[in-house]
């Protein structure tokens, strides 16, 4: 028996089992819940790295669930793109799990903590499931597992989070149902649900209106799930009022996994030429995402609440990725996939910092950030790095993905979009330097209120790790591209 053969299923099952074992632990020995929770996610990180190594060394992994052959049974397929996503999701969930130890203490009552951990693990299960599965209906189920746990996690935040969660449920359900309709139409026309099987079957059916309808349903459904601009209304409220650990985790992973699904649907299920040449869809998506970038950035300027600012920036960043995917050239795709990693690090780091500041001063208002540097120098240094990366200053990671996106946009001739991309960088510069100025060069008048020290160590370490990762990963972008992303390029790019 070789466990690493099974790592693609274990990464889904282990958090699932752990999530329920946690409930038993709650009754047996409550103190063990947190260590167990972190340990499990640590194991997931190890597994994900193992999967990545296997994929790099041996190529695509296929796992037949229950021993059933592929088009009939559910098959888990892991290629470079999945493996890359799994590593991102698992490491972010692990890092935020460490962070959550102290951070949730102020936001969630003690009795509910084990349930928080369980739901968190379920969310991780859902996300892992989405990334590993090679079956579009199974993907729907995992999508809903992830979404349901996300609704619950959002709802345990502060008072207003409940209404936000309700809106999230309504929007999320519409998105999921649209996706399900897409699955239905695909099933009607092909009689198969397996992605690799569909890749084979669909090309002969490209002329059919049903195929087009399915694709439209898919894209709108996923567009809601990833909060692409006009469908984004659920996101800012949810991520603002959710507990800080949840905002950090969800912002860093949920939308990124959505982007992954979009890539799978657009370029694996269908051939790239279907979206790019045979239908105007990719063109529509490019303009759609350009508008998303523009308005996301624009709305972000006006926000006073730091987490809300980040949410709108996130909406703009989602626009970046959707844009990069649809340009239809190598550079754009590389930029988008690289940005999945960079953005999850940056936005995760910033949300964690926002949570850290909230932990200490009890406010998310940007106006209250005055002079924080004196009290929390290390956190603020991390903030500076993440902010520079958001703006896209080299050598931080954010620059490199932006570089590829802009090069891709210019090469494909979408100059307006390139200008909007740069405009959004400038807006980020405006937003973040306004905050940096408050942090470093403004004294706070009411000093007694601010007599506090750095964050507790369990919150500091994750923040520092992500900030360092932003710096280091930037330098190794070439390595990542040549060993992972290059192999996940769709056909004909």
């Amino acid at each position: 028996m070789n466990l690493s053969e099974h790592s693609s299923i274990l990464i889904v099952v282990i958090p699932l089992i752990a999530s329920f074992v946690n409930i038993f632990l709650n009754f047996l020995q409550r103190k063990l819940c947190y260590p167990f929770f972190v340990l499990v996610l640590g194991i997931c990180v190890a597994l994900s790295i193992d999967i990545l190594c296997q994929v790099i060394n041996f190529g695509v992994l296929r796992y037949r669930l229950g021993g059933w052959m592929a088009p009939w049974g559910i098959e888990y397929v892991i290629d470079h793109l999945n493996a890359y996503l799994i590593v991102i999701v698992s490491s972010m969930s692990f890092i935020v799990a460490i962070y959550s130890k102290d951070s949730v203490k102020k936001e969630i009552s003690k009795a509910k903590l084990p349930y928080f951990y369980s739901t968190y693990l379920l969310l991780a299960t859902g996300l892992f499931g989405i990334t590993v599965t090679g079956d579009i209906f199974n993907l729907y189920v995992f999508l809903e597992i992830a979404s349901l746990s996300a609704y619950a996690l959002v709802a345990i935040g502060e008072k207003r989070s409940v209404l936000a969660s309700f809106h999230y449920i309504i929007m999320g359900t519409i998105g999921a149902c649209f996706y399900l309709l897409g699955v239905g139409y695909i099933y009607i026309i092909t009689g198969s649900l397996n992605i690799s099987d569909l890749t084979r079957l669909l090309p002969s059916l490209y002329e059919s209106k049903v195929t087009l309808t399915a694709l439209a349903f898919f894209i709108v459904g996923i567009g809601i799930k990833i909060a692409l601009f006009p469908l984004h209304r659920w996101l800012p409220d949810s991520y603002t009022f959710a507990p800080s650990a949840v905002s950090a985790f969800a912002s860093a992973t949920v939308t990124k996994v959505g982007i992954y699904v979009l890539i799978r649907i657009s370029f694996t299920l269908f051939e790239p030429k279907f979206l790019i040449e045979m239908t105007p869809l990719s063109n529509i998506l490019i303009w759609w995402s350009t508008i998303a970038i523009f308005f996301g950035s624009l709305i972000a300027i006006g926000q006073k609440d730091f987490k809300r600012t980040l949410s709108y920036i996130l909406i703009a960043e989602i626009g970046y990725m959707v844009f990069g995917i649809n340009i239809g050239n190598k550079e754009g795709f590389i930029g988008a996939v690289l940005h999945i990693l960079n953005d999850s690090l940056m936005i995760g780091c910033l949300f964690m910092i926002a949570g850290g500041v909230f932990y200490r001063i009890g406010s998310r208002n940007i106006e209250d950030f005055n002079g924080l540097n004196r009290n929390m120098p290390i956190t603020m240094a991390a903030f500076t790095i993440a902010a520079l990366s958001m703006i896209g200053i080299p050598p931080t990671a954010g620059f490199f993905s932006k570089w590829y996106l802009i090069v891709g946009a210019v090469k494909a001739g979408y100059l307006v979009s390139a200008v909007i991309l740069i405009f959004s960088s400038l807006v980020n510069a405006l937003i973040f330097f306004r905050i940096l100025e408050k942090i470093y060069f403004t004294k706070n008048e009411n000093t007694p209120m601010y007599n506090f020290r750095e964050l507790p160590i369990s919150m500091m370490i994750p923040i520092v790790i992500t900030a360092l990762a932003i710096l280091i990963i930037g330098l190794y972008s070439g390595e990542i591209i040549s060993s992972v992303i290059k192999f996940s390029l769709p056909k004909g790019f």
Partner: protein
Amino acid sequence: METSISIKPVLAIAVSAVSAFLIAITGEKLRNLRETWSILASIFKFLIVVSMLPDILCGKVIEYCLFRITSELILHFRIDALGLFFAMTASFLWIITSFYSIGYMRGLNEHKQTRYFVYFAITLSATMGVAFSANIFTAFVFYEIITIATYPLVAHKETEEAKKNARKYLAYLLSTSVAFQLTAIVLTYCLSGNLYFSKGGNLSNDISSSLLTITFLLYIAGITKAAIMPLHSWLPAAMVAPTPVSALLHAVAVVKTGVFMILRVVFYIFGVDLLKSLNLETVLAVVASFTIVAASVIALRQDNLKLRLAYSTVSQLSYIVLGAALLSPSALKGSIFHIIAHAFGKITLFFAAGAIYVTTYKTKISELDGIGKRMPLIMASFTIGALSMIGVPPFAGFISKWYLSVGAIESDKIFVLAILAISTILNACYFMPIVYVAFMKKSKDSKYNGINEAPIFVLIPTVLTAVLTLVVFLCPHPFIKLIILIVNQTFGG
């Protein structure tokens, strides 16, 4: 051209980065040790830079590839004569400024001196980085580092005015570099496929001329550090910084970085032939000429001494750009000689302005009546600096003006001669009144009568740079030798 691989450029950059770290951990309590680090680093840096001189004089090029981030984005150093020349000027003046800083900061009992010295050292590191860079990407990285590292220096006083000006400073430098320079770099990459500075230009003739023109204009607009009008107003804004910052950074290191990059773009990205065929050099020459005259006129109206010097800097920088725009060997000679002539002259002037402020807290020219009698040495140095700026024979400024004039005739641009003449008159108009009131008028407040010179740490550097201005005129041969080498390398003669 022979190439030798050496780690020296990295060392030269690392020395001050390491010192920044040492300064930061030493802190305010051991201020003498802290200042020792600063001085040691400056001396070491200069020695490392000079140690590369023999190789360069033999016609060799020193290369070191630091890091291959992606296939086209490479942190690569290559030192030719031009880079070394700039690096030597900046690193030599850092030694003098280090001493001056100590005198100035202690004399005024400034707050947060540690932060000041840390960022000063980082800025110098990045300046070396620009000087040594082998491709426009490396230059861009260090360019951005300079922008961000100088921001705390400009905002040093932390008053509302300082913050406002620092905001302006950052807004100009960062937004233009991200919006225009980055776009230009992307376009360069898309047009030519690589980002290296290569002799005779990187871009080739067979690309559509409108794209090339756009790229060129984006570069000129994007390299805002050269303070070409109308994007100059960050430089006067930066004058809220402590005087040593204005002296070394905003008269030498930062602004010359901008000019240096324009030289690189003109000669090593576009190349003489391409520019001539597109007739772009005329555009640049006209813009530079306009800047020279307009900035001088504005300088006439300034009552604040540092502001007047700042506008003078704007005007003088355009001499260098103008020299480049003429695209003739003699003009380039003059242009490069002006880098050093202006550096010595302007630093003397700023040192003198700082010395006046340290001793008398006066910043306005209208308050300087009779100051020459109180501080004869300082004002004598000031006079020397002013004369050199005007271009009066026994001082360095004359030589550069001479070569520029020759170059103007060589390239048949007679209007440049007129510009030079007008500018000389204007220079005299705004500098001589200061000298006049300082020596001829009687002091208004009779409290101070005797000689009351500045502190020794401030005085000696000022006098030293003044003397050097004279020395450069008297024995320019070592410089000329290097400059001829540069011209040969550039024009391939």
